[in-house]
């Protein structure tokens, strides 16, 4: 039993160990930021490796904690993302005197996400959710001096509290109608009665809030803009990914009985999300805000994929998220480096960027192309497979709409590329010397972007795992 725990929960355990180590380091004598950061990055790498080692499946605590190959894979993706983020934020954290606090918050929230993903019970689910959100609210406020930072944190904590209130209401109704909190049992009691539909809608709205689907998305842009870049990228990639994983597994497993209903709901959400996200993204000048809205639009496409409600659906979702991790983090990486070293965060500042920083420009461009879904980047495949999964239901009006919206999204991504390559700027961003670690992270992202698409093994692997869903 015990070694079974060590086996099944190893990712959570390593992470917790790491957290405690950080606490002790904090208590211990002063150390240079650089050494701490290196230690943490190495630790994260180990964590990732440990996760990759072997994949098992099983339940713990009478089904409250379940895990299987797919879930482990998902957690690994999250680990990878966190590793990349921490490598990228090297430049920002190097002369920040609360590095450890920052990581503590980050890791706690990550730990929460792990529990969230492998939750087999509404209670754990709720705990994981909150555990992943609350530290982030604190982290969003990490630039204590910045007005925007605190405003962002306030908005995040209040709206997330509100949403969790709504979510809990839903859970309580589910409990009331079914009398159980365990997913496996719950499924049997799910039917089409109004109260459960209502409960389900409340639950979905809670999810929609976390993955920032319209109209539950409004906090996103502000928080992304206000929070430090590292936190923003964490929010936009990691927490979104975690919630999506859970969302899909809950939809497919627990709420299969009312699939026809949630298919419609997802469709409505997807359409509105893509459309609003695109329309807002067109106008943005602040890079983080821009990425916020673009990622909202991306979520819309993800919802299309999920709505396929098939193995292909979940497979394409995970595949896309893997790619999304690379592309979005590459973009954020460049932004974080630039904003950390020059404090410039606006697209208009990036005019003539290519003249001064060709490497960064190419990284950013490729990342954006991948986000836009242009071959030969992986984004093309990811987006395409999502659409294909969605089209499987045969609702083509929906696909046409999405396809045409891809053109709009294409417009605003190209807008940035245009600024970088084609526009003149009297005060361009000066040549930036990137820390080695961050450069490494960028290369990882690049390789990911360029390889993941062609390496069919990735998709096939995910697909094969998705049966275990």
């Amino acid at each position: 039993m015990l070694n079974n725990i060590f086996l099944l929960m190893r990712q959570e355990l390593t992470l917790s160990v790491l957290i405690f180590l950080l606490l002790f380091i904090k208590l211990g004598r002063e150390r240079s930021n650089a050494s701490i950061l290196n230690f943490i990055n190495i630790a994260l790498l180990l964590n990732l490796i440990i996760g990759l080692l072997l994949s098992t499946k099983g339940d713990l605590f009478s089904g409250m904690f379940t895990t299987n190959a797919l879930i482990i894979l998902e957690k690994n993706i999250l680990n990878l993302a966190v590793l990349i983020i921490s490598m990228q934020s090297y430049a920002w954290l190097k002369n920040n005197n609360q590095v450890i606090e920052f990581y503590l918050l980050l890791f706690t929230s990550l730990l929460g996400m792990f529990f969230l993903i492998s939750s087999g019970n509404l209670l754990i689910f709720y705990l994981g959710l909150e555990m992943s959100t609350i530290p982030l609210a604190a982290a969003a406020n990490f630039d204590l001096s910045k007005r925007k930072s605190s405003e962002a944190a306030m908005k995040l904590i209040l709206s997330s509290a509100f949403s969790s209130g709504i979510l809990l209401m839903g859970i309580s109704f589910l409990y009331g109608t079914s009398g159980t909190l365990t997913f496996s049992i719950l499924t049997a009691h799910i039917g089409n009665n109004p109260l459960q539909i209502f409960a389900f809608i409340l639950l979905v709205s809670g999810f929609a809030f976390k993955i920032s689907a319209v109209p539950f998305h409004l906090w996103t842009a502000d928080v992304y803009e206000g929070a430090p870049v590292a936190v923003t990228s964490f929010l936009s990639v990691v927490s979104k990914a975690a919630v999506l994983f859970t969302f899909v597994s809950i939809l497919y497993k627990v709420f299969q009985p009312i699939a026809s209903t949630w298919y419609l709901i997802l469709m409505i959400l997807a359409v509105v999300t893509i459309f609003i996200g695109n329309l807002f993204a067109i106008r943005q000048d602040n890079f983080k805000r821009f990425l916020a809205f673009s990622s909202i639009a991306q979520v819309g496409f993800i919802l299309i994929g999920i709505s396929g409600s098939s193995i292909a659906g979940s497979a394409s979702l995970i595949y896309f998220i893997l790619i999304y991790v690379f592309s979005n983090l590459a973009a954020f990486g460049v932004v974080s480096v630039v904003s950390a070293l020059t404090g410039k965060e606006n697209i208009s500042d990036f005019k003539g960027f290519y003249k001064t920083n060709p490497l960064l420009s190419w990284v950013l461009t490729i990342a954006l192309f991948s986000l836009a879904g242009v071959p030969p980047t992986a984004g093309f495949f990811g987006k395409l497979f999502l659409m294909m999964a969605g089209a499987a239901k045969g609702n083509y009006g929906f696909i046409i709409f999405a396809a045409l919206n891809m053109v709009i999204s294409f417009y605003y991504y190209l807008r940035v590329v245009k600024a970088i390559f084609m526009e003149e700027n009297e005060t361009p961003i000066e040549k930036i010397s990137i820390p080695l670690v961050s450069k490494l992270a960028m290369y990882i992202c690049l390789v990911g972007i360029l390889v993941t698409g062609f390496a069919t093994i990735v998709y096939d692997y995910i697909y094969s795992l998705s049966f275990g869903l």
Partner: protein
Amino acid sequence: MNLSLLILVPLITALVILFAKGLKQIRVIGLVGAVTQLSLATWLLKLYMGERASGNNDTHLFESNYTWFTTLHINYHIGIDGISLAMILLTAVIVVAGILVSWTMDKLSKEYFFLLVLLSMGAYGFFISLDLFTLFFFLEVAVIPKFLLIGIWGSGNKTNSAMKLALMLMAGSALVFVGLMGIYYSTNTFDLVQITHMGISVGVQKFFFPFAFVGFGIFAALFPFHTWVPDGHASAPTAASMFLAGISMKLGGYGCLRIAALMPEAANSYGWIIITLATIAIIYGAFATMMQTDLKYINAYSSISHCGFVILGIGMMNKTAVNGAVIQMVSHGLMTALFFAAIGMIYSRTHTRLVAQLGGLLKVMPFISTVFVIAGLCSLGLPGFSGFVAEMTVFMGSWQNPSGAYRLATILSGASIVVTAVYILRATGKTIMGPISNEHALLADATWNEKLAAGLLITGILIIGLAPFLINQLIMPSTNILMSPITKAITLK
């Protein structure tokens, strides 16, 4: 021979260019790659003709088929028939010419050549793929380089043109994608060959044909989705305009042809719309050209008019017309590339493209002027040049369709040759002939690389124009194979 070479060579070229130093190395590498590709293509032609001569009647030769995404039934399935081989040859020739004319591109030359090669790679991949997904993949691969080429190295209102072009082409490929989805979910495969065998239910065809066809049509400057053509071509640097008009628009025509062949019933029942649009494009393009004052705009609009013939031929859905359409694609590719090359040479010397400011160039630059005239004569369909062969074949084919309306369309499009004569002669008369202005009196004639490029293209034009039976041998069997079941299917219905 393994067709993947056709993709590998450009790929390797591009990678080597990335590690090259300085314009001198880069352009040489680019040229070497392009020439290798051209020789590959010609060798392929030889092999192909050999196969056919030895009585191999398969639809596609040199097929190879690898699974790519098993679970999604996506294969990397490549193979060629006469049509695609013609397109490949066209591409190869134009690439060589394009690299030659941009021999002295010193602004960001590495990126420039890299993108050119990448674009060509997309085209090659597109033409050899027999799997709709791969097709689509390469179609989109070819879009981005255009955007960057125009936006960075272009002239005039370049960013807007680039943006417009990229967005419209993207919209096109989005429509194509919708069409592909329809096909995929009705046949559960992307494989062209299998789909052709299976056939698609008429209902599905009726619904999805417009998407796919219009989608590709946008690439082929189908009226009224042609507006990216003039600005795009006008703003692009010379080589890019050559590639755009010579290669990229052909992607569209080729795609339209494939789609029409996949969904014959739909193509037939929508035929009258297609033909109407094509006719409008032809006439309208011609008249619009007549009003232009900028050489590049003249050629761009005339491209709209000429590509109308491609669409017309496809819309007529009979062997001769389709044959003509294919020949027209090749011919127009060479011709318009030649035209853009000539314009580029003139522009690089006189620094103006406005007809009004030019004149009497024949005095100072006889070679370039001759090239210009030849391109012009080819474009107005003079016998001995490829244009004549192509257009006449299209006319002949479309006239075989006894319906009165189609006859009318044929006559109207035929009338365009008069208008063509008008605008070509006006351009020639004003720029090449007439008194020369003083500030142009001391300009130099073409350099060796320009001569080589022009010579190459002219050779292509002449080969088709003087010995059309050669290209017919290449194309006609394939068009027959392509169309014969279709004509059956249509008559059956």
